């Protein structure tokens, strides 16, 4: 049993030998994830293509993403700032950062549900690693996020933050954030392909979670700290990226929760994908 690649490189090299048999179990799934990741040309191309397609024939193109996020943040900042009588120079940056990362988190998970089931034509007809379809969703959302970050830069120009070395914590925070939303999206992608009731369940959970998570409101607005904040992983994830950008240090607790989730979740997601890998083409 030589190579188990399902994606032999076409023109060059000696002839590859591929063996397909039921004995290969999870191994092919794991190599699929690795080979898929190395095909950045594919999923990168798909991701750019998706965004281009969404805004084909519009003048501003993907900057409509930026504009609609800008309108949301601007209007909500004004309304809730007035409503709760909060100083705009701290409230608007908080709201902008919260919205941008919440959007990144939820759209990656929600669109992740469709990663394989939406690529049925490819999966059934075109040999390439299955994980390419998953990386495509993550890459696409990363691009959307990058467009939204323009808003945060604008907000920072209007309400200049105090610069401190705490800002550097954004880098590890973002890495942990990305790992966590990726494994969540992969789990959702696999389960949704098999059980078609899952995407609507996820979509409604995400909607409810928005109100439970401190995005518009602040955790310290609650009198006694509510248990549902500390138990909410989305809160910890948001804190890792939002707090450093606002010049605050995320709590140690948030780091621990997110690092733990990243390790356990990634192992679970990889195991699930490896287990389902052989059956996925039959499910789409």
């Amino acid at each position, binding site marked *: 049993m030589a190579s188990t690649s399902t994606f032999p490189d076409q023109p060059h090299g000696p002839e*590859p030998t591929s063996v*397909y048999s*039921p004995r*290969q179990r999870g191994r092919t799934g794991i190599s699929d994830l690795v080979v898929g990741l190395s095909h950045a040309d594919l999923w990168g191309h798909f991701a750019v*293509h998706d965004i281009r*397609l969404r805004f084909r024939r519009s003048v501003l193109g993907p900057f409509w993403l930026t504009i609609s996020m800008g309108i949301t943040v601007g209007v909500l900042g004004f309304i809730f700032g007035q409503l709760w009588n909060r100083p705009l120079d701290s409230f608007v940056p908080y709201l902008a950062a919260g919205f941008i990362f919440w959007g990144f988190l939820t759209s990656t998970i929600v669109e992740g549900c469709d990663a394989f089931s939406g690529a049925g034509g490819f999966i*059934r007809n*075109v040999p390439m690693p299955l994980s390419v379809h998953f990386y495509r969703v993550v890459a696409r959302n990363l691009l959307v996020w990058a467009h939204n970050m323009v808003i945060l830069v604008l907000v920072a120009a209007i309400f200049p933050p105090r610069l401190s070395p705490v800002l550097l914590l954004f880098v590890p925070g973002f890495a942990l954030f990305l790992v966590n939303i990726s494994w969540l999206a992969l789990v959702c992608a696999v389960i949704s392909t098999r059980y078609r009731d899952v995407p609507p369940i996820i979509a409604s959970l995400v909607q409810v979670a928005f109100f439970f998570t401190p995005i518009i409101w602040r955790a310290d607005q609650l009198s006694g700290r509510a248990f549902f904040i500390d138990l909410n992983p989305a809160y910890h994830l948001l804190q890792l990226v939002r707090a450093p950008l606002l010049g605050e240090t995320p709590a140690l607790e948030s780091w621990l929760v997110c690092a733990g989730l990243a390790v356990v979740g990634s192992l679970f997601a990889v195991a699930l994908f490896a287990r389902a890998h052989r059956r996925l*083409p039959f499910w789409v």
Partner: protein
Amino acid sequence: MAHISISSLAVDFPVYGANSRSLKKRLFAQITGGRVVAGEHREVMVRALDGISAEISDGDRVGLVGRNGAGKSTLLRVLAGLYAPTGGEVSITGSVGALLSSHAGMDPESTGVENIFLRGHILGLGRAEIRSLIPGIAEFTELGSYLDLPIRTYSDGMSARLAFAVSTTIRPDILLVDESIGAGDARFMDKIERRLEEFMSAPRIVVLATHNVGLLDRFTNRRLRLDAGRLSEPDSDTQDAP
């Protein structure tokens, strides 16, 4: 040296959305004696391929024949590495090119050229390589300025031409073709035949699933007949190809 070795290959297909947990089906089962129902909670499985064994070597041009639903497409998908076998083993030496559907892997909203890039990337080609292929593809498909239009504006025949052209400009050792290429006018069928001829002059393997007797007679030197997922005796009854 291209080679395909298939030994007692089996593929089971789970069928969802056909479960038996509806009152109507349960009542029906009572009347018919319960034979349609596979089980209350178990998924319905279809054995698409059963105990297939075959050796295909260099120079073999295999015509895969059989009725609709006999398992031709499933077998091609297993050979392409798309479907994993449930039993048995398939071992393939050589690079594999698959042309299983003229629409899959094409994006209707993108132009012909963009789709050439998309397909080219999928085939593992770099940007420069793909760019150098475009003139040849334009000539072969005779699509001309249509290549700059979204392919949703193409006819079935036009997109089939494009798919065929892109998939055959690279030369895999083993080419798997499903009957979908049948969509094309007589003139283009000629071109396809010439391209296939060219392709087959090299010592490679071609597996062609089709109902088109003309194509079978001209291009295949061997037949595998599938019947309800099993390989039936080949060559014995060539005249009644459906």
